[in-house]
C-alpha cells in the first residue's frame, strides 16, 4: 500500500511559525520522497527551513530511515541513511574510537540535516564545515531520478546540496569521513573573560593551540563589560589522561510544560546570565570533561524550547568579518542590547575559511548566535536592524536559524544566491522541491 500523508503540526525548534501540514513517514525514504515537496529530519532548524511552502504540500519525515549502510574501519568512511541521528552515531561509534568530523551543538539532528545546513562546530577554525568531509550524497531530485553526486560526479549538484537547505533534492544517503579519536573523553579548559576585546583575542590565541574553541557571552552586559563571558577550549583526551570506562549516557530531564510568557522577563534573563558568568568563579578551569557536556550542554534538557512559551523564539546567527578593533562585533552586541534584545545564550566563535558548499554559512570572521523570544512587532524590527548592520559590515546570516529576514536583505548579503538558484533551476526548473523559507527568501513561488 502506498503511504498516505497524515496531518500534523509542523514547526522548527523555535516553534514559530507553525503549519498544519501533511507528513509522510516511513522506513522507505526513497518511496515517500517521490511525492514529497521537502524532506525534514529532527526539525532542529529554528525557523521555516523545514516547513512546506504550502500546507497541502506533503513533507517527508526521514527519521525512520536510520540505517548505517557501510563502514570501513581502515579508512573511517561511513555511509548511512539520511534520517540517522547524531545521537545514534555517537552511541555506536564514540566508544569504538570514532567521532563525526564536525559536530553541531546538539545531538538531536539527523544526518541529512547536517548536510543540508552544512553544520559547523567548535573545530571550524581547523576542520571547516561538515560538508568538507562528505564524500558523496544520494539524492532524489525533482524529476524523480535518484542521483549520486560528489566532487567527481555532478559537482554542481553536490556543492549546491552542501548547505543547500534540502532544496536541491531529497537527501537519501550520505557518505562521509569519520575521525579516529584517542579516547571518548575531552580534555577541556575554560576561562572567564572580562570583555569583548579579551574574548576576541582569547579565541584567536586559543585557535593556535586548541582544535576546538567556543565562547559564551553574557549578552546583557554593557559598557566596559560588553562581551564578557566564558571561553571554552578542548581537545580529545589521550588514553592516559582519560577514565578507563567509556562515558555513560547522560540522564536527561524534560521540560514538562510550556512556560508562561512572564517567565522570560529581563530580570530572569539577567539572573541567568549573571549566574552563568559567576558560576565560573575561578579564572581558569582544566580537566577531563564528558563529551556530552562539552559538545551538547543543552541536550540534557529535552524540549527546552518550551521555556520560551507560547509565542516561540528565534535565534539570530551571523558571521562578521574580523576587524582589529572588533568594531563589527561590538556594534552588533550594542545594537542587540539597545534594541531590546534579550536572551539566555549568546555563542561566539571565530570561523575559518569558507567551505565548498555554495550557500554554506561560515566565512572568516566572528560568528555570533543568540536566542531570543519572539515578540510579534519588536522581533521583526530588531532582525531588520541587525541585518542592516550585518550587510554594512559585510557579514551574512545562517539560514538554519532564520525566521524573519527580508528577501532584499538576504540578497544584499548573499552574492552567491544567483549561482545557487541557477543550479536549482537546472535540476528543478519548476521549483518542485521548496520550503516556506525558500519562498520567503529565494523567490520561489508560494
Amino acid at each position, binding site marked *: 500500500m502506498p503511504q498516505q500523508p497524515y496531518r500534523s503540526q509542523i514547526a522548527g525548534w523555535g516553534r514559530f511559525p507553525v503549519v498544519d501540514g501533511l507528513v509522510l513517514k*516511513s522506513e522507505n525514504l526513497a518511496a515517500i520522497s517521490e511525492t514529497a515537496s521537502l524532506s525534514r529530519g529532527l526539525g532542529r532548524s529554528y525557523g521555516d527551513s523545514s516547513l512546506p511552502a504550502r500546507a497541502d504540500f506533503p513533507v517527508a519525515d526521514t527519521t*525512520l530511515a536510520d540505517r548505517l549502510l557501510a563502514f570501513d574501519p581502515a579508512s573511517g568512511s561511513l555511509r548511512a541513511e539520511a534520517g540517522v541521528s547524531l545521537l545514534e552515531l555517537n552511541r555506536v561509534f564514540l566508544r569504538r574510537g570514532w567521532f563525526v568530523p564536525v559536530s553541531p551543538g546538539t545531538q538531536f539532528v539527523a544526518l541529512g540535516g547536517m548536510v543540508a545546513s552544512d553544520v559547523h562546530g567548535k573545530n571550524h577554525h581547523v576542520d571547516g564545515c561538515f560538508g568538507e568531509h562528505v564524500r558523496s550524497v544520494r539524492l532524489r531530485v525533482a524529476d524523480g531520478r535518484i542521483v549520486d553526486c560528489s566532487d567527481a560526479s555532478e559537482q554542481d549538484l553536490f556543492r549546491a546540496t552542501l548547505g543547500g537547505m534540502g532544496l536541491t533534492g531529497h537527501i537519501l544517503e550520505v557518505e562521509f569521513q569519520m575521525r579516529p579519536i584517542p579516547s571518548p573523553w575531552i580534555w577541556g579548559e575554560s576561562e572567564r573573560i572580562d570583555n569583548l576585546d579579551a574574548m576576541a583575542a582569547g579565541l584567536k590565541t586559543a585557535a593556535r593551540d586548541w582544535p576546538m574553541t567556543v565562547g559564551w557571552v553574557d549578552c546583557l552586559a554593557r559598557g566596559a563589560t560588553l562581551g564578557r563571558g566564558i571561553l571554552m577550549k578542548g581537545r580529545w583526551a589521550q588514553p592516559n589522561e582519560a577514565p578507563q570506562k567509556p562515558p555513560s549516557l547522560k540522564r536527561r530531564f524534560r521540560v514538562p510544560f510550556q512556560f508562561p510568557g512572564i517567565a522570560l522577563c529581563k530580570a530572569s534573563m539577567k539572573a541567568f546570565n549573571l549566574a552563568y558568568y559567576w558560576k565560573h568563579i575561578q579564572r581558569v578551569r582544566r580537566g577531563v570533561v564528558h563529551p556530552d557536556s562539552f559538545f551538547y550542554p543543552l541536550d540534557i534538557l529535552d524540549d527546552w524550547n518550551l521555556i520560551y512559551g507560547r509565542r516561540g523564539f528565534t535565534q539570530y546567527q551571523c558571521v562578521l568579518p574580523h576587524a582589529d578593533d572588533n568594531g563589527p562585533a561590538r556594534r552588533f552586541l550594542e545594537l542587540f542590547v539597545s534594541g531590546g534584545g534579550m536572551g539566555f545564550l549568546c555563542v561566539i566563535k571565530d570561523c575559518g575559511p569558507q567551505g565548498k558548499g555554495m550557500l554554506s554559512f561560515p566565512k572568516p570572521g566572528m560568528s555570533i548566535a543568540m536566542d531570543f523570544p519572539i515578540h510579534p512587532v519588536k522581533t521583526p524590527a530588531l532582525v531588520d536592524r541587525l541585518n542592516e548592520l550585518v550587510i554594512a559590515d559585510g557579514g551574512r546570516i545562517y539560514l538554519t536559524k532564520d525566521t524573519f529576514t527580508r528577501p532584499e536583505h538576504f540578497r544584499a548579503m548573499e552574492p552567491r544566491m544567483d549561482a545557487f538558484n541557477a543550479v536549482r533551476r537546472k535540476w528543478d526548473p519548476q521549483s518542485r522541491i521548496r520550503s516556506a523559507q525558500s519562498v520567503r527568501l529565494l523567490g520561489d513561488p508560494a
Partner: protein
Amino acid sequence: MKAVLLGASKGMGRAVARLLAARGDRLFLLGDHVEELAKSARDLEIRGAPAPVGTACCDLLQPATFAPALDQAQQQLDGFDTVVVTAGLFATQEQLENDPQLAARLLAADFTNTVLFCEEARERLLTGTEKGGTLCVFSSVAGERGRKPVVLYGAAKAGLSRYLEGLDHKFRARGLKTVCVKPGFVQTGMTVGLKPPPFAGTPEEVARRVMKAIDRGWPEVYVPSAWRWVMCVIRRLPRFVMRRIEF
C-alpha cells in the same frame, strides 16, 4: 545466541535486532524485500553483529517460502536457538471492512501463515543441536478482547496468542520457550498518522523489554508494561460497556 528474525528490517523488529547486534549475537534475517534485508544486514553488522549477517527471502503471504528460508538460516548459522517473528500486516477496521481482499490477506498473514511459520521454526528448534531454544512472536493487545476498532485484526491476533499459549504448555518441558509479545500502541511506521493514546511506546523501549523476556523465558510480555493493567481492566468490562465505548 544465534537468532533468526522475520520482519527485522522495520519498526519493533529493527529495534530488537539492533539490541541483539549490540551484544554480539549472530543473526540471520528473513523478509520479503531482498534489498531492504541486505541494507538492514549491513546496519546490524556495523552495530556489532558478527559478519556476515545472512538474509533469505521469506514472504508471510507465501508459506512455501518458509521452509527453504529457515533451512538456509540453519545452514549459515550452523543451527539456531532463537526465532523472533515481528512481521505482520496492519490495517484499520474501516479499511478492512471496505476491502475484503485486504481482510483476507491480513487474516492469512497475521494468523494462518504466522502459525505455519512458527510450526516450521518449532520443529527446527526442537530437533536442532540445542534441543529447544526460544520462539518469540509478536502478537498484540488487540487479541485480548473483541473491540470495535480492531475486530478483524484483533481476531487474528487472538488466535495467534492462543496458539502461542498452547505451544508453551506443550513444549516448555522439552526445552522450547515460547514468548508471546503483546504490544500496545507503539509509534512505528505501521502506526504513523494514528493518534497515539496514553502509554504509547517507542520501538526502543519495547525492544529492551522484549530482550529481557527472551533472556528470562517469560511466556507472555506486555509492552510498554502499563498495557498489562490497561488490558486487565478491558478484559473485565461487561459487554454492555464494550458495546458503548469506542476503544
